[in-house]
């Protein structure tokens, strides 16, 4: 997921991964804290602008957004019906509120804007650079490597899962609404849990075998360039724009 848009020559690709990580966090926080339509729309516009600047394939970005919007769809089914406020319209005994709809629109825009920012900043760095940036930014090592190993083992577990699914298909298994199906799915989930436990144990042994004693040593270090200074100025200005729009109630 993270490494699909790695190749590229845009200004975003060239930015120091530490800056991208910091601004991914700042943008997400600033957008998440907004509660007026003007500033979240500005956030969304900035997200779209940054994605265009990074020259990431639009089709791939839309796929990522779709993943988020499936969850947002659930919110659309719940919040307008449960949020207190003035009646917008009524279906039988259900009341859809004007404030509920507004709040869900706000959430939808926020989620999409944050996703665009994350795709733009994180997908244009390798997992290797992200992990290094996190360590350079003094994020606790345990947390960083938990994140990295999670990413690393998603691949392994996904391979294991695919193997299991192939084995099931090879023996004519079909999903259905039966005890046999549920039991089989249980076996797969259980199998994956056991395998991930074994993998974790073996991985720790492999690390200990190679002298690991709790400290991760870095081989490379990042260097600031003129692009990074331009990037910091631009990204800070954009963040300020969101805050000023809310503060001055421009939109």
């Amino acid at each position, binding site marked *: 997921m993270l490494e699909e848009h790695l190749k590229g020559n845009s200004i975003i690709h060239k930015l120091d991964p530490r800056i991208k990580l910091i601004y991914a966090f700042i943008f997400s926080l600033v957008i998440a804290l907004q509660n007026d339509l003007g500033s979240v729309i500005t956030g969304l516009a900035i997200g779209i602008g940054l994605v265009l600047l990074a020259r990431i394939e639009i089709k791939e970005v839309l796929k990522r957004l779709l993943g988020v919007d499936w969850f947002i769809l659930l919110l659309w089914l719940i919040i307008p019906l449960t949020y207190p406020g003035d009646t917008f319209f009524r279906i039988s005994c259900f009341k859809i509120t004007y404030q509920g709809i507004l709040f869900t629109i706000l959430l939808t825009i926020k989620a999409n804007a944050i996703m665009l920012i994350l795709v733009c900043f994180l997908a244009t760095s*390798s*997992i290797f650079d992200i992990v290094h940036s996190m360590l350079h930014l003094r994020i606790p090592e345990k947390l960083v490597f938990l994140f990295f*190993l999670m990413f690393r083992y998603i691949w*392994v577990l996904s391979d294991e899962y695919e193997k299991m699914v192939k084995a099931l298909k090879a023996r004519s298994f079909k999903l259905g609404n039966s005890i046999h199906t549920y039991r089989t799915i249980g076996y797969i989930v259980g199998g994956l849990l056991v395998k991930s436990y074994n993998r974790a144990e*073996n991985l720790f*042994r492999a690390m200990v*075998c190679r002298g*690991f004693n709790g400290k991760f040593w870095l081989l490379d270090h990042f260097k600031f360039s003129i692009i990074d200074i331009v990037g910091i100025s631009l990204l800070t200005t954009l963040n300020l724009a969101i805050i000023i729009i809310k503060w001055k109630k421009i939109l």
Partner: protein
Amino acid sequence: MEKNPLIKLSSISFGYNGKPLLFDKLDFTVPEGSRIGLIGPNGCGKTTLFNIIMGFLRPQKGVIEIDGKRMEGEKDFQKARKIIGFLFQNSDDQLFCPSVREEVAFGPLNLRTPKPEVEKLVGEALEMVGLKGYEERAPYLLSEGEKKRLAIASVIVMKPKVLLLDEPTNGLDESGITMVFRILKEFGSTYVVISQDNDFLKKAVEIVYTFKNGRLEKINEY
């Protein structure tokens, strides 16, 4: 003259919780410069033996000596692991770094080797296993054979005195097996190999042991 044993297990008894003893007063000696093969059916305890040598499993009885020192606790094993390289059966269990270069550098960096020296060692190890030019690739995206070669590189880069190899040819094609054989020949030091591949063992080792009644028995000498 009798060679100095790098690994010496004396009267080792071991059984997994609630199960009958897998090893009963097992003795095993790995003299310096020896090339030993271990063969046996699944579940006979080949990998368990390696885990005991590395200190991951503790025997109920017996004495473990590595490089002349008796192993008493985790601290002793931590020192012992610096002179023993352990290649796991499944490379996916062994590789975890984001790039090939980082993977090979992981061990030397833990040993606080200076960075220019680490770079040199990484280059040499990758050259030896034929992975030069793969430095920035992600280990988990390599083929099975390449993963195995990378796992070997990450072990030999630490210049261990003795190598424990658990099924090094497992899942490899003919050229991969030849490559492992060539690497072992170049490594030229002491090693113990678990393998079911008789042809490989004939070429790679001097003595082959198998497990019988919880002990090791010499079955072949080439």
